[in-house]
């Protein structure tokens, strides 16, 4: 009897320790978290050649004042130097008030977890990141505060219109009301082609003024797909797309929307534009114009693109510096638009991403924190550095519109910033002109991106021929809807 009691107690102790263990499970591996500030960098985990700092690092700059600010961000090591300099300047400019700015930087993977811990503990940094998707909840729950009253109008007006809109919230909808964040960046997911492969195949380059139609694109891909070494196996493909990120621009360019206008209903079954576009997209693989699903699991499209095996590949604004570096990508390349479907508005569409600096509602120094956020976002020298004007490596476009269209474009033209010469493709997407348009993804407007997961993670079954497009859409809709319902419920729970 005694032994059994002991056994039970031991079992209890063991499983209890397991529970505690579960609650704190952490990992240092990439966790795709599309909601985490819709940060574009995560779309290409392997795309970051620069070493990320291991874990957090904290730097402190001290002045003679009384006050301490805590800044918590994620970025790459070479970016950190740029921002560290801005923070040092800020401390000097306000040295009468500020004692120190604690600048804590972690990896993107760890950021979410640490922020969750901070939120739960009620111990928020003074300045931290917020993504467009999170603004509403953060405001509703009283975690962040409006910045417009602390920063002059001219500064706010100097940034991209899009980033002024997506960080505004009036208590019921995004896009109007007070401004809650300054952009760290505004990026877009453009398309690129390997010029050397075009030269070899004797095909004229894509026209940056006029993106291909679906049909033209497939035709060019056919010409670029070949067995180069003659071993009977294709080793060069027209295009490669990651289903999670590279599929949607092709679908959007056929007018596809996954949700209704108020983002409450999933509409994928009775959606002829989606059926058409998804059929086109999966046929690219079925017709052998992309690596097969199996080949894709062996080596992702990004790596194959870097190896010169792929004609067309996605190029985020954050990828440009890497693609311009001959050690990373020893080929000539340029930008072009995603192919345009027959049932859209005739323009090439893609998605944008952004993450912004916001200020905690509980900060003791809202004025200073807001000004620091504005400086990190809009300091001209800082923007010259991150856009490559002064450093030669462009990891983003300048946040300041005048700087982007003026000095930055000039620097691209003169070759001062190594950049693809068709930079106007990116500007076109931002401008929403006659040929190009870009918008945030629908997942950026919902509480989380879980509802989209069954879609992108299941598309490979169509490519493999295991299910038809129609059946897939029928099968996936209820699951997407129930996850969306859950997201809406959680979104609303925030206002309780």
């Amino acid at each position, binding site marked *: 009897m005694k*032994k059994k009691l002991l056994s039970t107690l031991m*079992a209890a102790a063991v499983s209890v320790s397991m529970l505690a263990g579960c609650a704190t499970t952490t990992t240092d591996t990439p966790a795709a978290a599309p909601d985490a500030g819709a940060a574009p960098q995560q779309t290409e985990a392997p795309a970051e050649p620069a070493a990320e700092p291991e874990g957090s690092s904290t730097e402190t700059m001290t002045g003679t004042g009384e006050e301490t600010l805590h800044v918590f961000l994620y970025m790459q090591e070479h970016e950190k130097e740029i921002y560290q300099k801005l923070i040092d300047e800020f401390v000097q400019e306000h040295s009468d008030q500020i004692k120190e700015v604690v600048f804590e930087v972690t990896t993107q993977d760890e950021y979410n977890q640490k922020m969750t811990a901070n939120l739960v503990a009620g111990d928020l940094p003074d300045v931290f990141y917020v993504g467009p998707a999170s603004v509403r909840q953060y405001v509703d*729950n009283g975690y962040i505060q409006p910045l417009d009253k602390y920063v002059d109008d001219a500064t706010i007006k100097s940034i991209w219109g899009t980033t002024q809109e997506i960080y505004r919230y009036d208590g019921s909808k995004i896009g109007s009301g007070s401004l809650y964040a300054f952009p760290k960046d505004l990026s877009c997911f453009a398309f690129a082609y390997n010029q050397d492969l075009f030269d070899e195949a004797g095909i004229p380059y894509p026209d940056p003024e006029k993106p291909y139609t679906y049909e033209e694109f497939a035709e060019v891909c056919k010409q670029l797909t070949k067995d180069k070494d003659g071993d009977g196996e294709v080793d060069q493909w027209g295009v490669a797309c990651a289903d999670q990120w590279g599929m949607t621009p092709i679908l959007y360019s056929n007018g596809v929307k996954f949700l209704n206008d108020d983002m409450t209903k999933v509409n994928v079954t009775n959606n002829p534009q989606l059926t058409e576009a998804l059929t086109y997209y999966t046929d690219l693989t079925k017709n052998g114009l992309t690596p097969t699903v199996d080949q894709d699991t062996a080596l992702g499209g990004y790596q194959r693109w870097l190896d010169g095996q792929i004609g067309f590949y996605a190029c985020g604004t954050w990828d440009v510096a890497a693609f311009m570096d001959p050690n990373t990508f020893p080929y000539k390349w340029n930008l072009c638009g995603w192919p345009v479907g027959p049932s859209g508005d005739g323009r090439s569409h893609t998605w944008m991403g952004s993450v912004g600096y916001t200020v905690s509602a509980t900060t003791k120094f809202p004025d200073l924190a807001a000004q620091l956020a504005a400086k990190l976002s809009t300091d001209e020298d800082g923007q010259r550095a991150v856009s490559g004007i002064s450093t030669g490596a462009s990891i983003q476009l300048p946040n300041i519109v005048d700087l982007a269209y003026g000095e930055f474009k000039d620097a691209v033209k003169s070759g001062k910033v190594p950049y693809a010469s068709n930079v106007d493709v990116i500007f076109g997407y931002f401008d929403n002109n006659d040929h190009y348009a870009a918008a945030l993804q629908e997942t950026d407007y919902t509480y*989380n991106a879980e509802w989209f997961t069954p879609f992108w993670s299941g598309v490979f079954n169509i490519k493999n021929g295991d299910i038809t497009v129609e059946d897939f859409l029928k099968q996936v809709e209820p699951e997407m809807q129930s996850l969306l319902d859950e997201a809406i419920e959680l979104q609303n729970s925030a206002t309780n």
Partner: protein
Amino acid sequence: MAGKRVKTRMSAMAKREERWAWLFIAAPFVGFMLFMAYPIVFAVIASTSKWTGLNSLWGNIVGLGNYIKILHDAKFWKAMGTTVIYMIGIPIGMILGVLIAMGLNRGIPGKRVLTTMYYVPVVSSLVAVSILWAWVFNYDYGLFNGIYKALTGMHGPNWLGDEHMVKVSMIIFMVWKGLGSSIILYLAGLQNIPRDYYEAAMIDGAGSWAKFRNITFPLLSPVTFYILITSMIGGFQVFVEVQVMTNAGGPNYSAATVVYYLYEKAFTNGQLGYGSAVAVILAIIIFIITAINFWGQDKWVRTID
């Protein structure tokens, strides 16, 4: 009452000692309350809410709502099924562990080097070896398929990209990773078995199989029991290898485990309440399985005395 009487008779020194004793007990007790009891109670409360980490936990209590939802959550059950399937690796690891330990126990030369080699995976970073094995399993460039192609001239299976093969791959990996510690434990167990048992058996004319079945196996049962318990608990908690070696839980979520699902819910999708409910269910399952194991041990676990 009795306690009170004892206390009154205590000398000053005994009192002082008692105070010290309480202090010594307090250290682990406070630690337990802070780092175990409090989080557990918190997790249980959170599991009854729609807590997101952002909203107020108390304002969003839904009772057993999360638990009822989990019962109908196909993804949860798929992950649970996969977690259980992965446990096929436990008996495989045990059998291999005993065999190799017996081999090493014969006093072969290089025993220490071999033991060290088998143990290296156990002390290696799980993340690092998972990345390594992702390459071993790679469809086009992996070690396994390289050997397979050299031998057969055909392309090997898609170890991590096929819904069924990915489970096999994970089991292979887990067996490899855990083998070192079972070998060490079995080796210690073997060395604890008195030589005279075997000598007596030999005199009685027992063959090697009879010796194994009637002496080695029963006397190793405490070790087997220990490995079984720890492996099953560990088996329910598999997470890192899934996270590292597969993309989004593998093709059609075929590689995802319960803890992976929990992590995804809580930290990727911001459903801390739901994630807590999954954790509580997992803890209850582990408790039940461990309790069954302990109760069942009377039937098969033998000790030398």
